[in-house]
């Protein structure tokens, strides 16, 4: 009786998110899938979390069991927004068989869903079918397709991430998503490897300006050092440092639109950090801003004094591609 066996997602948690101007309860689920078809990004820690090669039926079966587990472990009324990650592409039929998508739509009908995918799988028909499946009429846009654009700079995306698609691919995907009645969410990545602190900050400021008119929402991830990744190797060799929280504040303050930003790993050596003394309030402040949109809070934090600010200012100005990272 295989089908009775439980199958848990890789991770799932409840939280709050700012969604279309309101603070809503969110359920985030990371499904274990067939694995990302690209699977090359330098900082991706999910490369090892895939199912081994399974026949498509069995893969579908296992994924559906994960859906069932979510339904059994979280009450419908506890959340309004569902964020789906697969550590790859939700709309890649090889990774997530279409039958699974239909099961997800049926299980979570009525929720506002955000599903992550690479742009090449944003097919208007598939997106429309899924949107119609979940749409109960309660939401203006019940589906947002989320794409890990990371940056609008193709050179950085290729060099620093090895992402394998271009900004033009993203723009085409956005068009397809919009045509299918879905929203478009862009994930940006602050400070992938091989960037100076200044290059990393400027890359985010520019990317946000570029993508703001195209994306319905923007979420900025701060690069962290995850186990068994290329970034971890570089970090161990003193060749990589996650961004300063001061730089993150800089980016968020200068953004013309609200940016979602969950400072995961904030204040730790492997995550975005300052000196250790001033990190706590800034990490909390960024998380609060992400919900409230209160830029004033960020400005106040950026004004606070700490001994490490002078170091950060020096690094911002003095770190160059040929002498980096200057600090740990």
């Amino acid at each position: 009786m295989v089908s009775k066996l439980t199958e848990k997602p890789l991770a799932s948690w409840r939280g709050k998110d700012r969604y279309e101007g309101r603070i809503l309860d969110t359920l985030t689920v990371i499904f274990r899938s067939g694995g990302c078809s690209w699977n090359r990004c330098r900082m991706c820690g999910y490369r090892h979390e895939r199912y081994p090669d399974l026949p498509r039926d069995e893969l579908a079966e296992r994924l559906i069991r994960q859906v069932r587990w979510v339904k059994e472990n979280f009450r419908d009324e506890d959340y309004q927004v569902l964020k789906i990650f697969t550590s790859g592409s939700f709309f890649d039929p090889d990774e997530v068989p279409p039958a699974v998508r239909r099961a997800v739509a049926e299980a979570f009908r009525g929720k506002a869903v955000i599903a992550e995918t690479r742009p090449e799988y944003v097919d208007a028909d598939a997106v429309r079918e899924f949107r119609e499946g979940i749409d109960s009429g309660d939401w203006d846009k019940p589906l947002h397709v989320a794409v890990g654009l990371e940056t609008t700079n193709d050179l950085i995306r290729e060099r620093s991430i090895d992402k394998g698609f271009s900004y033009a691919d993203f723009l085409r995907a956005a068009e397809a998503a919009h045509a299918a009645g879905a929203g478009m969410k862009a994930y940006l990545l602050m400070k992938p490897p091989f960037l100076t602190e200044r290059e990393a900050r400027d890359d985010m400021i520019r990317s946000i300006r570029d993508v703001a008119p195209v994306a319905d929402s923007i979420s900025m991830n701060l690069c962290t050092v995850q186990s068994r990744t290329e970034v971890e190797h570089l970090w161990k060799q003193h060749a990589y440092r996650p961004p300063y929280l001061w730089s993150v504040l800089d980016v968020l303050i200068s953004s013309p639109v609200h940016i979602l930003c969950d400072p995961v790993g904030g204040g730790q050596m492997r995550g975005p950090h300052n000196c250790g003394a001033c990190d706590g309030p800034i990490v909390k402040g960024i998380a609060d801003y992400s919900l409230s949109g209160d830029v004033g809070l960020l400005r106040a934090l950026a004004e606070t004094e700490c001994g490490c600010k002078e170091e950060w200012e020096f690094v911002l100005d003095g770190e160059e591609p040929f002498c980096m990272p200057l600090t740990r």
Partner: protein
Amino acid sequence: MSRYEAQKRDGLARIGTYEYEEASVSLPAALDTDALFPTLRERALSNVPLAIDPAFVQNYFSPGEGQPVAVHPLAASAESGDCVMVANWHTAEKNPRNYAGWLAALKEKLPPDTAWYAPAAALPSTACLLVYSGFDLFDYRGVDLASAQKKFCLSEGEFPASMMETGVCGCEGCREGDLARHNRLALDREIALVRHYVEAGRLRELMEARCRTDAAQVGILRFLDRNYAFMERSLPVARAVPMRANTAESQNRAEVRRFADRVIERFVPTRTDVAVLLPCSARKPYSLSRSHRLFVNTVNRRAHELIVTSPLGLVPRELERVYPAGHYDVPVTGYWDREECAFIADILTRYFAAHPYRRVIAHLEGGALTVAEMAAEACGIDLEVTCKGHPTAPGSLHALDAALEGERRMQTDTIRGTVSWQFATDINTKGLQLRGRSMQMAVLRGKQQLFSIDAGTGLFRPTFEGWDLIPEGYRVRIDSFVPQGDVLAPGITACDPRIREGDEVLVEGPLAIATGRATMGADEMLRSKRGVAIRVRKVKKLGE
């Protein structure tokens, strides 16, 4: 126009001049490199870490526009005269094994007559290591960062800024309470000191002292020493200054191993089949000491005298004036540690395997005797011990005299021993005489001088007639010109790869031959386009 020329070397370290556009700077030095190279900061998105995979280097590495030329261990290419910038070298120090490996890869691929820039790497605590590693040009990024971090920089390391008030430094910056000024001055001062040690040919000793406060630096020193072939190539064959062997790392100096290897592989001992092993003396050369005068008188030419010593291992009497035998100094406590014993016993073992004797007499006590016993056991020699208490005690000397009773007398052949050690050739010394006293010695045949002896280094300096005795080796081929004064590197077409800085060489060209001394090693002679390669002593035009 970008040019670099080294004027003085000490291993990988150099003192030289770098010229770029209008600027001419003497290196090593810390400079405002953003001003020296106005386009330096226009290298956006060009980071390639040292520890990255070859594919990334191939796809994304760029040397940049103009000067300096960025290099990477996997993509090292530059022209003579360039300033090469080893990007991100400040991160290398964290991994001693990689540091040594990358450095060797870079030095072997790049022309020697290039100035080496290590961006953001120099601190008062790292400058010595960087210069020792062959870097010449530095910036103030590292110390300015330390200032921004409220760190007080000394050669011993980085300390909280509050240390400035404790009076450890009395510089202008400290007097004015200006941390940034102190940190820059501390770096300048350290580089000036390092430079002094390079000038003096004693940087190794400063390096052995400086590395003590940082395990990574000790590690780097050891990893570099392990790459003997790489380090030995750039070391002078001899120096005229003391070698202070005061640390555990001293015995790893390439000069120590080179001396021992030559004693085992090149040296031709005086013809005798009795060896007597003697203890060393603090006074150098040994024969000037009271104890050795007693030994020499007692042995009375009836045995080949071999001095057992740390860290050199074994110094035959013939070589006692040659560097570093006549120059080293060690702390003497009477205790020989196991590492030392094993190292020296190994040298003795190899020596006795290469040069067998009928009798080996050990006129030794303590650690030196232990070492001799270890070696005797390893090569199956019956050691005769003649010490009864202290080696100079009457009883000991009497026993030594008695042991040599009836052995044939013969003259110590210093000429054959030194020439074989220095030129790897065996010469017939019949009719040759060593004349003169310590500071003014020469080898003559009748009235004709064949060699003079450098009182500073103990090396032989052949005249043209002296070179006639040395059939091959230590030759430098030059183009069709008659050397006037010095021979420059670009004039050299070929040379013996065994030539090291300080070696006596015979210059041979279609138009002239000349005697002289190498001021750079063979590797640099062949790969450089600039610099004095040979200081010529005598020139003889051919066909006259």
